[in-house]
């Protein structure tokens, strides 16, 4: 399913905030058409890494290549021009604007007609309608004309996802897109990711849900303390191997000690 050409890769990418080494010498590679999962403990540097890939953070050092061409993104629009779209962990929504306006934030559809195009008149009906269509893909009920501030946590996440879907990118980066979603909602998003891959999109997925990750990803990259710990084929690795990598440990068994009394701990099985 995954091709061998890297569509995106980094060389010794590093980001420091003052003396905090958030990402250190990371070589990260994504192949065309694959779902690449990026996992790691809290504070491992996942968000920082992908924010460099979409122009939000400027790298302290290192290089980024997209389609074998070195790039340097000044801002998010540069990245977008290279076909990269992102769902941020912090969602990045404008709270006092409507859901529909947020789905199209920065890329509002304009009206036909000379005047419409000349003035960049926003086609509100189309916007509301298309926002509905996009939100329907993740099947989370939310009023497109409600203020985002007045929607629930999961609804907000759905808006952020709908925004990314609306733009038809080559590479879609999703930073914990299902964390606030219900089971159904998360399932729908995974299904959408699956569909997008079928359509040839490349996807980078950050998630703490290893089960989701192993269920959907082609490969898994593991970060720990800002460093790349390794890359694994999803169908050749176990959940515990991944966790071991995440913790920077060699011995898997040490992560098994906790078991809640009355039910099988979900973290302990499957893969």
């Amino acid at each position, binding site marked *: 399913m995954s091709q061998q050409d890297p569509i995106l890769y980094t060389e010794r990418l590093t980001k420091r905030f003052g003396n905090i080494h958030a990402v250190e010498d990371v070589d990260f590679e994504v192949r065309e058409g694959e779902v690449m999962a990026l996992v790691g403990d809290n504070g491992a540097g996942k968000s920082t890494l992908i924010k460099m890939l979409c122009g939000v953070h400027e790298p302290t050092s290192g290089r980024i290549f997209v389609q074998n061409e070195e790039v340097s993104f000044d801002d998010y629009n540069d990245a977008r021009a290279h076909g990269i779209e992102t769902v941020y962990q912090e969602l990045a929504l404008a709270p006092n604007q409507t859901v529909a306006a947020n789905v199209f934030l920065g890329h509002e559809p304009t009206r036909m007609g000379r005047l419409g195009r000349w003035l960049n008149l926003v086609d*509100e009906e189309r916007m509301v309608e298309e926002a509905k269509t996009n939100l329907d893909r993740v099947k989370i009920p939310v009023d497109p004309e409600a203020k985002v501030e007045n929607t629930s946590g999961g609804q907000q996440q759905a808006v952020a996802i709908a925004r990314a879907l609306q733009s038809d990118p080559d590479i879609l980066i999703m930073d914990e897109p299902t964390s606030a979603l219900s089971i159904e909602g998360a399932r729908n998003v995974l299904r959408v990711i699956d569909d997008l891959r079928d359509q040839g999109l490349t996807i980078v997925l950050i998630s703490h849900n290893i089960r989701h990750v192993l269920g959907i990803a082609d490969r898994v990259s593991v970060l720990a303390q800002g460093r790349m710990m390794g890359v694994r084929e999803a169908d050749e690795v176990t959940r515990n191997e991944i966790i071991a990598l995440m913790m920077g440990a060699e011995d898997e068994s040490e992560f098994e000690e906790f078991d809640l009394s009355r039910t099988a701990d979900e973290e302990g099985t499957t893969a």
Partner: protein
Amino acid sequence: MSRAGDSLLQRLISRREVGVFFGFLVLFGLIGVTRPDIFLNWGSMSGITSRLFRSVAPYIIIGIGMSYLIIGGEFDLSVGSMYAVGGITFAMLMNDFNLTVLAALAAVLVVGGVVGLTNGVIVTKAGVPSLITTIGMMSVLRGIAYYFTPAGSRQTPDLALIDVFGGSITVAGLEIQNQIFWAIGLTVVFGFLLQKTRFGYHVYATGDDQEAAEMAGIDTDRVKIVNFVLTAVLASFAGVVAISYFGSMFGSAGIGFELLVIAAVVIGGTNLFGGEGTLLGMFLGSLVIGVIPVLLVLNGMPVELQEFLTGVVIIVAVLLDILIRR
């Protein structure tokens, strides 16, 4: 979640603009209560109303730009000085450099554009807070206004075309200043652009959450710079309109306008911290600001009381609005 349709009335009442309009009506009605002799006389009343609109026209014209700026998360304290420089250079270019009215106007607007661009670049690219930048620019422009008025003031020459800004038309015996049409026309056009264009959407988003807007691909620096330019251009245009009407302008013209205009914008429901607001609100807010001195002078208030009551009325007008919408 389940949702029933909002009634039109409910939606209407919850809008800030309606509250402000009501506040304005109350103040206006107070003229009737205190001076029924004037209020019930069509001739005086229509004149008073027309003059009220005239007196707030400069605030409205500047308020358009200021609304864009504030909704987009910044503001500009240099508008009063820009207004003076605009009017004074307009007269100077025609008198001393023999420019035509249109050429002088164009030059003035370009000057405004350059000032706005400077403000915008200093704020967005250098990161100097807009308060400091525009306080600084306020001083700089005031110095220029003084420099260009060694005799205290400048007068416009006698050119017919100036009446496009400063003249009036008479409808059914009522003299209506052209300024009013400019103020209304510009409000409608820029109100439409703010509500309906992509740029307008980006203004709201930028003021709402700048980081989110940037992360969504909006060039917030550009948005802010355009807003600064718009504000300075409109402020200089307001100066042109004012000197065309008064025939003369002092170097000290427009001192204190910045606070009046910002107050009008905020009274109209715009959030001072950005992300929310309409031009209609600003328009009504300007009328509230303008009707207070009319009410007080018509009732012959002495200066101290005038100052005192102005403050009371401003607070009460907004309080009323808030209480009504509760």
